[in-house]
Each structure stands twice: as structure tokens, then as C-alpha cells.
């Protein structure tokens, strides 16, 4: 049995990813087939954001990964390095 925190975090991640997937599926695939005067359109941003937000988030992720790698590499330099 995983620890209580592990289970909570794990299932939280599952729920989070499900929510994202369902919201995004409705946004991208289902909304265009619904008339524009239906009330459901109130809960969704304009559809340009359906492309901008994931791309921006992806770029931020890459940035974060790059920064993390930089940080780890800087931390693990051998101290006795003589530079000319």
C-alpha cells in the first residue's frame, strides 16, 4: 500500500488530468457543433485561447525543464576547476 499522501496526490493527479481532458475535449471538438446562443458557451473562453494556452504552457514547461537542468548542472560542477 502506498502512503496516504502518495494516494491523495496520485488520485488528485488523475482527477486533474481527467478534468483537463474533458474540458479541452468539449472546448475543441463539441462546442463548434453547438449553436452560439446556447448558454454553455458562457463557460468557455474564445476558441483562439484553446490553441494559445496549451502552447504557452508547453513553452513554460520547456523553460522550467531547461532551468532545472541548468541548476543541477551548475550545482554539480567539480570545484577544483582552473580556468585560464
Amino acid at each position, binding site marked *: 500500500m*502506498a502512503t496516504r499522501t502518495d494516494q491523495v496526490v*496520485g488520485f488528485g*493527479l488523475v482527477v486533474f488530468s*481527467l478534468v483537463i481532458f474533458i474540458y*479541452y475535449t468539449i472546448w*475543441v471538438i463539441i462546442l463548434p457543433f453547438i449553436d452560439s446562443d446556447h448558454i454553455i458557451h458562457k463557460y468557455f473562453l474564445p476558441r483562439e485561447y484553446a490553441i494559445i494556452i496549451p*502552447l504557452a504552457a508547453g513553452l513554460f514547461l520547456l523553460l522550467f525543464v531547461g532551468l532545472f537542468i541548468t541548476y543541477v548542472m551548475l550545482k554539480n560542477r567539480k570545484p577544483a576547476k582552473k580556468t585560464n
Partner: protein
Amino acid sequence: MTKLEQWMSTLLVLMLIWLCLVQDLLNLGYSKKFHDVILPLPVYLLVTAGSYALGTLGLRLANFNDCEEAAQELFMQIQEAQADLASKGLIL
């Protein structure tokens, strides 16, 4: 053919199909709604793959089989081994 080559060729085929549909190279003449759905599909694929990865991560994290007693037992054995070796002169 390596796994990477398989994945890349599948993605390439999907990308070509998507490009054909978006630019309407086959002159199928479909409605605007169809075009509105086809256009974000690559980003949709990325988001789906990302959320699948995240969900699988979470599931595996929640179902990981921690063996508490085995861990304790192993720890005791490590202590014993260290004490034993130290008494025989090996300094770790």
C-alpha cells in the same frame, strides 16, 4: 525499424493527412464547423498525450506497493552488516 522510426512515421502520416484537410487540397468543400474542429487537432493531440501521461503517473503513484516491513528489515540487515564489517576492520 526502431520504435522511434515507427512513432515518427506514424506522426508524419497523421501530420500530412491533417495538412491535406486543413488546406483542402482534395477540394472536398466542407463546412466551416468542420474546419474549426480540424484546425486545433495537433494541439489537441498534445494535450491528450500530456493528460494521459499525467493521469498514468498519478495512478502508478497511488498504487505503488510500498513494503514497509521489508524496508525496515532491510535497514536492520544493513546496520548489522555495517557493524559486522566495522568489527572486522573495514571502515566504510
